[in-house]
């Protein structure tokens, strides 16, 4: 408690939190954008799909952590962290978005065709909204994973961020600060998950609510 107070007052906690959240936000946004775009491209342009799909199907089973050395060579330490988070998030969003698009109800597509909608309009007005609940679910999973990847990367190679704060506390045998930082990390993760869950509920308020089996 006292350690947490000390960290807060000194501004260390805030500074490291800002650094971590910045990294998370940037990497995850990149991943979401790339994942959703790739899936949309595969769905809209069959020829692009012929190239992208097998490639991603092949790359997806490689555990994200295995990419770290390659990413460090290509992007340097900080770039590798972003790439790691983006890859983890992107692969999850890509898979789910593609599933959602392929699962679009034929009846709705018929309706859209009847009203002269283009393929892009069908994607944006029918496929994605009809699968919004699932997509938000994937976003929650992806952010959970990103949080883990971020912390891991900061524990191993960093001089700032919450992961580093935990590791640094260990180096100085400050168990109290370490615990305080851990609790803070858990709280933040919980808070973000609730935030997305509430966005999920708001964006899909049109759904009949599930009352239990």
């Amino acid at each position: 408690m006292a350690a947490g107070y000390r960290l807060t007052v000194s501004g260390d906690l805030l500074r490291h939190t800002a650094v971590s959240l910045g990294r998370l936000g940037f990497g995850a946004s990149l991943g979401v954008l790339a994942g959703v775009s790739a899936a949309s491209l595969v769905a809209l342009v069959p020829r692009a799909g012929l190239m992208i799909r097998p490639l991603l199907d092949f790359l997806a089973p490689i555990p994200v952590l295995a990419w770290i050395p390659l990413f460090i060579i290509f992007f340097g330490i900080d770039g590798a962290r972003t790439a790691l988070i983006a890859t983890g998030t992107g692969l999850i969003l890509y898979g789910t978005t593609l599933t959602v698009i392929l699962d679009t109800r034929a009846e709705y597509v018929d309706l859209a065709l009847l009203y002269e909608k283009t393929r892009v309009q069908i994607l944006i007005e029918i496929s994605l909204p009809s699968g919004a609940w699932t997509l938000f679910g994937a976003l929650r999973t992806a952010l959970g994973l990103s949080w883990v990847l971020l912390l891991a990367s900061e524990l191993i190679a960093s001089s700032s961020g919450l992961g580093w704060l935990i590791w640094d506390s260990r180096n100085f045998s400050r168990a109290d600060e370490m615990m305080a930082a851990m609790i803070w990390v858990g709280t933040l993760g919980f808070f973000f998950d609730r935030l997305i869950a509430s966005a999920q509920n708001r964006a899909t308020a049109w759904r009949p609510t599930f009352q239990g089996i």
Partner: protein
Amino acid sequence: MVSPIRPAMRNDVSSARSVLSVRIQEKRFGVVPVLGSITFEVEPNQFVVVLGPSGCGKTTLLRVLAGLDREFVGRIMLGLNSVIRPSSSIALMFQDVRLLPWMTVERNIKFAAAASENPKSPQDSLVSVGLDPAILSYYPRKISGGMAKRVALARALAGNPSVLLLDEPFSELDTASKYGLYDLLIESVHSPDAPVGAIMVTHDISEAVYLADKILVLSGKRPASISSVVPVELPRPRYRDDADFLKLCTSLMIAAISESESQTPSKVDTAG
């Protein structure tokens, strides 16, 4: 788009003025012929009912007419243009309401009217089907089945189509709601300020006689073709216990029975 013309006499049969001209020679699903020769005209302000048993290809016929299914031999003419893809001039009401659940009533109507050159406002569309514009902001799950059907009709009419196709849209409603909607339909189709022609497919003889200016009886055989054309000249409003009404129902029933007795059993089942 058919230009506004003088209010049509309901049983006027001059094909030069027809809003939709149907010349189907054949429609197959793979090797199975579903529709045979089907030829008819629809005049503005005319209500045509296609009567046929379940599974005879009625839904397929409507999909072809709407431009959703283009793999057939023949030609559909909308005024002077060939129907080669869906257009806002031809509206289709599906058997299910098919409102998009993630859009409010207003967005559902706008979604449909967007492609039209002179769409009605969502408010006007709702009022024209007897609904309170207050439900514009509602999601489809919030409204009752009967209201949803009315919204679906409002959506179909929102683009000011010249042809309205109906696929037994009110079959699961109770009798009172159903006939309420039928009166609304007749009113929309016969309205002098909108030269719309309607084609409804159904298996219900009483409904057909209640609505139609002209009934096309489809044969139950595969491929389905028109076995008879029955002009319905009963005065409106029509009453279902009227002697002439019942007489026409009976003769159509007898025609349907003799048709089904000559039917060769078919194991192939397709939607419709």
